């Protein structure tokens, strides 16, 4: 059981930031649980999404930002579509994930590494190069056995392009990337 201290742990700044960044009012949530009922990822979440909404109302920054759920949400939009009070819950989850990333709470490291490999590939070529993402991910994680059996299968089907498709404007894309992800490494 995790004790909630509403007197000392309520972070009003955090609640305000989430409100502004998401354009949503977390107080509209009346805990019906529809979001969690429809969420396909509850089975791997440490905090189901309706609990994140409740913790947000209670200003529990630390508890929320350190949750694994933020990194396992696929933005499938079930919660947003089904919220009876029209809260864009997926948008709130996305904004919380932005904050968690900025503050260094990366609780699902491999998910973040996959995302980095993807964006890095985009930065380099302007379009993503799937084989490159895979290799980038393996290098970042050391998990060289990831989907090992699928590589030959795809290569055999001629679906794994072995060359990246560099575009002329790749510098433009790289510039956008560097603004948000940091300079070239």
């Amino acid at each position, binding site marked *: 059981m995790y004790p909630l201290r509403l007197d000392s742990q309520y972070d009003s700044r955090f609640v305000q930031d989430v409100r502004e960044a998401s354009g949503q009012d977390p107080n509209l949530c009346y805990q019906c649980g529809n979001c969690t009922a429809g969420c396909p990822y509850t089975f791997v979440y440490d905090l189901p999404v309706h609990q994140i909404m409740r913790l947000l109302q209670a200003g529990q920054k630390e508890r929320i930002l350190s949750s694994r759920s933020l990194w396992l949400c696929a933005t499938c939009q*079930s919660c947003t579509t089904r919220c009876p009070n029209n809260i864009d819950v997926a948008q709130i989850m996305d904004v919380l994930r932005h904050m968690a990333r900025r503050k260094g709470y990366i609780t699902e490291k491999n998910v973040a590494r996959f995302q980095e490999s*993807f964006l890095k590939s985009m930065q380099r070529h302007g379009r993503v190069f799937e084989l490159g993402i895979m290799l980038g991910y393996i290098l970042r994680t050391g998990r060289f056995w990831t989907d090992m059996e699928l590589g030959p299968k795809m290569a055999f089907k001629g679906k794994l392009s072995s060359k990246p498709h560099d575009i002329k404007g790749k510098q433009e894309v790289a510039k956008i990337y560097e603004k948000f992800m940091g300079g070239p490494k």
Partner: protein
Amino acid sequence: MPTSYVYYPGCSGLGTSLEYEISTRAVCQALGMELQEIPDWSCCGSSPAHTVDHVFSSALAARNLALAEEMGLGTVLTPCPSCLTNLKVAAWRMQERSFLQEVNKYLEQPCENQVQVKSVMQALIEDVGPSGIRERVQSPLKGLKVAPYYGCIMNRPPGVMDFDDPENPIAMDQILKALGAQVVDFPLKVECCGASYGIPRQEVVLHLSGKLLDLARVQGADALAVPCPLCQMNLDLRQGQINSFLQQDFQLPVFYYTQLMGLAFGLEQKDLGLDKLCVDPWPALNRAKQRQAEEQEKKGRKQKQRRDRQDSAAARSASE
């Protein structure tokens, strides 16, 4: 009457969803839809970008929207739901002037947010229509039972995507029916397949995509039809992994709906890319053909019996 559209293929069309790209182009051509590819288009950022920052993901999308504006055709089509979401969400956010200005700070060529973004499927339904599709069919897919799986973001969130029903979409059902296929009920039409967690958290995808295959089998489907490269990859390429993970023996081909359109239109094999599918589609297609032939034969036998009965009744009444 040929209609022209700006076309955004998306990165996966160059690799893992090559067959979607080939069949989409072939089908559109067959229906008189001219697709003009955005010159030097770049990645939309997909989900990894929006998990970092919304201005970031919108700028990546807006670079393409700005290039599309220059082409002066008004509507951009994309086959990929992930690209669709990114382009549409960016356009939706940029309706707010200050957000648009912020995004434009990162672009070489400013975006004016003047183009409309649609899925290829939406254009097929709105501009060609089920009857237009039916007219083009040469060999109907009679006997083929298909589970229509749309994936989670084709139609959601409804406020942004603004097409079809967010819980029970029917656009692809209509297309498949126009092709002569039998569409089975599929209550998990919009349930997520596990998205891009296949690499970092494989078991998540195997669990979620396994549920979809299981339901398709329970509903008696010969195959699934999908509009999404990521869903297709999870259900088709990973079907072997799903089988070992769940101790199952699924053998369900997962078609892009455009491949089925091409098949019914009688397009050449090179325009369908059926050989790119991991689960061999031919046993299912042949089974459907055989089922159809048996149905026909049964129908013929029944008709003959009825005729015989009528004849003998006529003979009896004549002799009385």
